């Protein structure tokens, strides 16, 4: 459905593009597209580093007994894999997409705070260099899990303060990025771009940004308390000194659960952009989608203790957190219903972004349903710390968040480069990913229900078969991901030229700009007619 009409007439303002060249363009970058590109490249590199760690984990778990990895190193791999994927891959990927798309979608020339934007990005490489450097210090990398529960975390060696410092840097980067997003959306929208005309991706990112500002300081507080417990003699989490290790879990998950929605809300936005385009219909229930997103964000603050039902809490507490967790199914159900209703009687076509969005719809729903099972307190007593939990959150995060990121890249790549990518190869990428993500994670439900605990390098022999299936799925999924950077690289180098509206059913201001867009997006705000055309939700 590529539009080959060479309609990409150079924007008037191209003539005024004073684009810096060489390394200065990237180190001193203040342009939202350049910074967005750097975020996306950084996320891609982190995805492959974290993926390598996952391959090592699956390699060790291919057979019972200890094969390749020392148990301490295995634990470091599970810990670093999570930190790398959450803070290094998914969050920067969303920030990269926000940088690229929000100014174009709201009719702004750039992000509101370009220098702060540069600073937000450049903190990240230092934070992750520090985190990965822990692999080479005495005592090895952190091995207490990404949740950093004391007292285990407090037993870390030289890696402990390095990890805490890296987390502070990631947190500051995220908060500054979030401030930039909020200020851009609230102040730089083109005249006529009212809040309820904004694309869903912008809405979901606005809500995500508020979540980030609210909860990243909580994580910073929690890890700083760990630091003072370790080095300055406080006993926040040490029972012997009057502290409470369970308190850490409460504080951590007060951050951690909204963090889950920080990872997934922008995915809802992306899917809400893609499905209407390839259904050639407006999004069903736009207002309801906005309110559902806000409801999910609100509920994310009052469900945190469902991560810790088994620590021993009063029955009233268990009931409250069980019921509040189940409430999340309502706004999430509204979303799934609306996406389905958007497709109903639509003129569907199945280009790569739509395939990823559909896969998201089915597989994220599986992750959501296993989440509901985990929300049931007596059932959770059985599932706690088993592979069922691992299966659940990987269904939410891989075919959920990661597939949405891939769908977003396949959706907007023609806009960014002006070229259509190799759709056949992208469909290969999709089918291999979708088949093997299920081979990888679905058997983990069975392993968990059969009682296999998570975060162990060895297991009882009866778990062998499904672990082997899962590992084979993991290797195949991992290998198939090399198609993704190849397809992008090939597209950046050239391809069939596309017009402004790369997909015939696409709506939104970004499709009114040339492909590729000018260095500064909307130096003149779009007219009301253009906004109305774009806002045909």
């Amino acid at each position, binding site marked *: 459905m590529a539009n080959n009409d060479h309609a990409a007439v150079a924007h008037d303002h191209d003539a005024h593009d004073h684009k810096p060249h060489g390394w200065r363009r990237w180190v001193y970058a203040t342009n939202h597209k350049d910074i967005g590109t750097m975020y996306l490249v950084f996320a891609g590199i982190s995805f492959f580093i974290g993926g390598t760690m996952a391959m090592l984990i699956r390699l060790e778990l291919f057979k019972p007994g200890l094969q390749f990895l020392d148990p301490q190193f295995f634990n470091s791999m599970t810990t670093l894999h999570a930190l790398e994927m959450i803070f290094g891959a998914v969050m920067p990927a969303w920030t990269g997409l926000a940088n690229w798309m929000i100014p174009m979608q709201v009719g702004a020339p750039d992000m509101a705070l370009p220098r702060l934007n540069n600073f937000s990005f450049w903190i990240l490489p230092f934070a992750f260099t520090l985190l990965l450097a822990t692999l080479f210090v005495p005592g090895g990398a952190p091995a207490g899990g990404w949740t950093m529960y004391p007292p285990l975390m407090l037993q870390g060696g030289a890696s402990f303060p390095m990890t805490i410092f890296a987390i502070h840097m990631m947190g500051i980067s995220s908060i500054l990025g979030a401030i930039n997003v909020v200020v851009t959306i609230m*102040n730089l929208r083109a005249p006529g771009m009212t809040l309820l005309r904004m694309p869903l991706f912008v809405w979901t990112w606005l809500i995500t940004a508020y979540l980030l500002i609210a909860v990243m*300081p*909580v994580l*910073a507080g929690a890890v700083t*308390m760990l630091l003072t417990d370790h080095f300055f003699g406080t006993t926040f989490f040490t029972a012997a000194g009057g502290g409470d290790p369970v308190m850490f879990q409460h504080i951590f998950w007060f951050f951690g659960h909204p963090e889950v929605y920080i990872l997934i809300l922008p995915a809802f936005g992306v899917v809400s952009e893609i499905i209407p385009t390839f259904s050639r219909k407006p999004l069903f229930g736009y207002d309801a989608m906005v309110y559902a997103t806000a409801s999910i964000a609100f509920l994310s603050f009052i469900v945190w203790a469902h991560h810790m039902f088994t620590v021993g809490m009063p029955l009233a507490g268990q009931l409250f957190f069980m019921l509040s967790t189940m409430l999340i199914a309502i706004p999430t159900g509204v979303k799934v219903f609306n996406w389905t209703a958007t497709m109903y009687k639509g003129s569907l076509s199945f280009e790569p972004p739509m395939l990823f969005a559909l896969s998201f719809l089915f597989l994220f729903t599986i992750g959501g349903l296993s989440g509901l099972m985990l929300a049931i307190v007596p059932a959770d007593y059985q599932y706690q710390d088993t592979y069922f939990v691992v299966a659940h959150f990987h269904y939410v995060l891989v075919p959920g968040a990661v597939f949405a990121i891939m769908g977003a890249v396949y959706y907007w790549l023609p806009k960014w480069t002006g070229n259509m990518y190799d759709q056949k190869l992208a469909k290969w990428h999709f089918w291999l990913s979708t088949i093997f993500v299920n081979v990888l994670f679905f058997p983990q439900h069975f392993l968990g229900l059969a009682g296999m605990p998570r975060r162990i390098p060895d297991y009882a022999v009866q778990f062998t078969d499904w672990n082997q299936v899962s590992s084979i799925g993991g290797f195949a999924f991992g290998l198939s991901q090399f198609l993704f950077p190849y397809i992008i690289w090939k597209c950046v180098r050239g391809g069939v030229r596309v017009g402004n509206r790369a997909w015939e059913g696409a709506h939104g201001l970004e499709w009114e700009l040339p492909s590729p867009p000018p260095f500064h997006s909307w*130096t*003149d705000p779009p007219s009301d007619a253009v906004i109305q055309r774009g806002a045909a939700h």
Partner: protein
Amino acid sequence: MALVGTAPDAGKRRRDVRRSAVLLGVIAAVFYVGFIVMMIWRAAR
């Protein structure tokens, strides 16, 4: 950045951007530092 002179009221918009950025920055800093200080202060009592 080509903000100046492009928006209908560029000066007002620039002031609004600054005001929002400072407000959110202060809120985030108070959250960030305040939470840490509050915890340490409570523990020190």
